[in-house]
């Protein structure tokens, strides 16, 4: 079996035999990467669960200070962006360049909106004196402010880590936008958008977990 070299429409990377093989490999690679990402977050969630168990009352009181409604609206925005990226994948699959560009831009816009709203939320928490580090005055009014600090530490560490993933995801989507704009080979673009979409979906799902465990659990 020698490699087919009559395929001029799509260029397969030299180590692969066929485009399907390459696509399968890329997809599996992304899934594995997402497994590692899930495990990364799981360590933080585990620690949160342990302390929630230990200081249930304090943690619930601290959680009630968070802006659940604002974050809820933000969740809607992020999930909508998940829909947009799914539609972009669909459009790329159907070789529709324009439509792909539209949905990708929508995804990015919604993602940026999420981050803006999130920053505003952080700002409100700063104003309310809920930042327990960087030598800020800590003005938590509920019982046991000492252990409440621990809760806010988790809040900032986990949402910060999630925001970092959002930023990485947005950069990936921007690259996709450029690639779609250039539109070299439609099969390849469809594949790349699909893999990028997978990452974005993951970031969405993690947010759902973040929202439930930090904002809703204590209510």
């Amino acid at each position, binding site marked *: 079996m020698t*490699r087919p070299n009559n395929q001029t429409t799509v260029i397969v990377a*030299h*180590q692969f035999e066929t485009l399907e093989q390459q696509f399968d490999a890329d997809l599996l*690679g992304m899934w594995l*990467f997402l497994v590692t990402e899930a495990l990364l977050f799981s*360590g933080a969630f585990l620690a949160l669960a342990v302390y929630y168990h230990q200081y249930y009352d304090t943690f619930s009181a601290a959680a009630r200070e968070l802006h659940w409604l604002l974050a809820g609206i933000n969740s809607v925005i992020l999930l909508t962006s998940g829909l947009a990226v799914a539609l972009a994948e669909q459009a790329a699959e159907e070789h529709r360049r324009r439509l792909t560009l539209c949905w990708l831009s929508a995804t990015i816009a919604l993602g940026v909106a999420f981050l803006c709203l999130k920053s505003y939320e952080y700002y409100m928490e700063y104003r309310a004196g809920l930042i327990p580090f960087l030598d800020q005055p800590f003005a938590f009014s509920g019982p046991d402010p000492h252990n409440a600090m*621990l809760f806010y*530490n988790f809040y900032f*560490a986990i949402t910060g880590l999630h925001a970092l993933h959002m930023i990485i995801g947005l950069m990936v989507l921007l690259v996709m936008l450029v690639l779609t704009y250039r539109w070299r080979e439609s099969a390849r673009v469809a594949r790349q958008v699909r893999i990028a979409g997978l990452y974005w979906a993951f970031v969405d799902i993690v947010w759902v977990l973040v929202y439930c465990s930090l904002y809703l659990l204590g209510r």
Partner: protein
Amino acid sequence: MNYLNAGYGLKSWLLTLDHKRVAWLYFISITGFFFLGGAAATLVRLELITPAGDLLSSDAYNQMFSLHGIVMVWFFLIPSIPATMGNFLLPLMLGARDMAFPRLNLMSWYVFILGGLFTLTAVIAGGIDTGWTFYTPYSTMFSNGAVLAAATGVFIVGFSSILTGINFIVTTHKMRAPGLTWFRLPLFVWAQYATSLIMVLATPVLSITLVLLGVERAFGIGIFDPALGGDPILFEHLFWFYSHPAVYIMLLPAMGVVSEVIACFAHKRIFGYKVMAFSILAIALFGFLVWGHHMFVSGQSIYAGVAFSLLSFLVSVPSALKIFNWLATLYKGHIRFDAPMLFALSFIGLFLIGGLTGVFVATLALDIQMHDTYFVVAHFHYIMVGGMVSAYMAGLHFWWPKITGRLYPEIWARVSAIIVFAGFNLTFFPQFILGWAGMPRRYHAYAEEFQLLNVFSSAGAGMLAVGYLLPLLYLIWSLRYGARASGNPWDARGLEWTVASPPPKENFATVPRVDSEAYAYDTPQ
């Protein structure tokens, strides 16, 4: 035309996408780290020749054993076999032209180097004295060392093993030549596969743990800080959830190498192939369930201690199966004692002792006495140095002709294998006795009555240094003056031996078709 003379400039190496050249980049860098870690160990052993703490201050001593541990664990043992021989051989053994993701492969090396630079910065900027385990609250609140830089280095290097792991798994799934079914894979590939699973599943937990540790130290975000209601024991749980599986990242590839070498030099099919393959997976799996055996005296619940103790005993079952199968492979084989075989046989003997003493320290009641003594130090060195490094040497010599196209000087290699074996036992066997007698680890001064055994140990370390420096010299020598190697100088089986030595850039001109089991030593190749 082969992969070595396909291009000469520095750029052709530093920007290479060829898995065989990436393997070389790793070879060179981890050899550097090995001798750096060795230098630190030399200072530790020199200090311990006398009972008084006279050569190094206690601070300098703490820095030396920490540097030694961090460098050896993350910058030598974890990458060692996978990143060098794994990178070189995996595509060859699968009949593929390269890894699934060649660019990712090169990137993993750059990530590795970046992590290394951070760690070296930590050494220059005041050293680090937490030991390789970074236990909180010492590491976050009290240590004056460059903890942040060192932890960042380890965090970064974690991504290099994650990338390697992903690449290996995808390559094994998607790049096998036609006819190369899972149960025709060489055990080396099975071992790399299981190792990669651990890399992918355990390393991210270390990453997040180090992130939490890092933010605690840098910004005062207390998560393990007892003053904020945090729990330092939680750090230990998270750390060992990675670090026990990590010991199998070090060990499983070694088992893969030894299987190849034993089969070749006994000139026999591996005994119990499927048992070997499944026991590798079983070890990888059980490895995730025993981390609490490092915490018997930490104050964890006694019931957890009992469970972890029993689960740890379970791990020794698949390990023992492997040893019996190697012995059964040797039985009635046409055994040749070339240097790779000598190293592989030392692996079996030393790993056996290391594994058995593992059962000692996994015994809950016994470990109350053993914990934090030299007995533990001897236990893990028997596995990590006696086992793992011996297997690394076995593989290095076995595939050296394939990698370089040159033969190494056999006599010198055998001499080195014997020196290493003798030196190793002289260094570490006394430490079992010392630990049993109660000498604690990690102190620069000790009671008078321990001196004799410590002098033995330090003398052995000197022998070990000679045993490891010799190969450095004669292997480099052989690059230029060694006799040229044929494609298959050992009469071994496996796809990597069907191509020329050194292999051509694209590995295989046409994709090979596989129609027989691995280790078909009863049929001529």
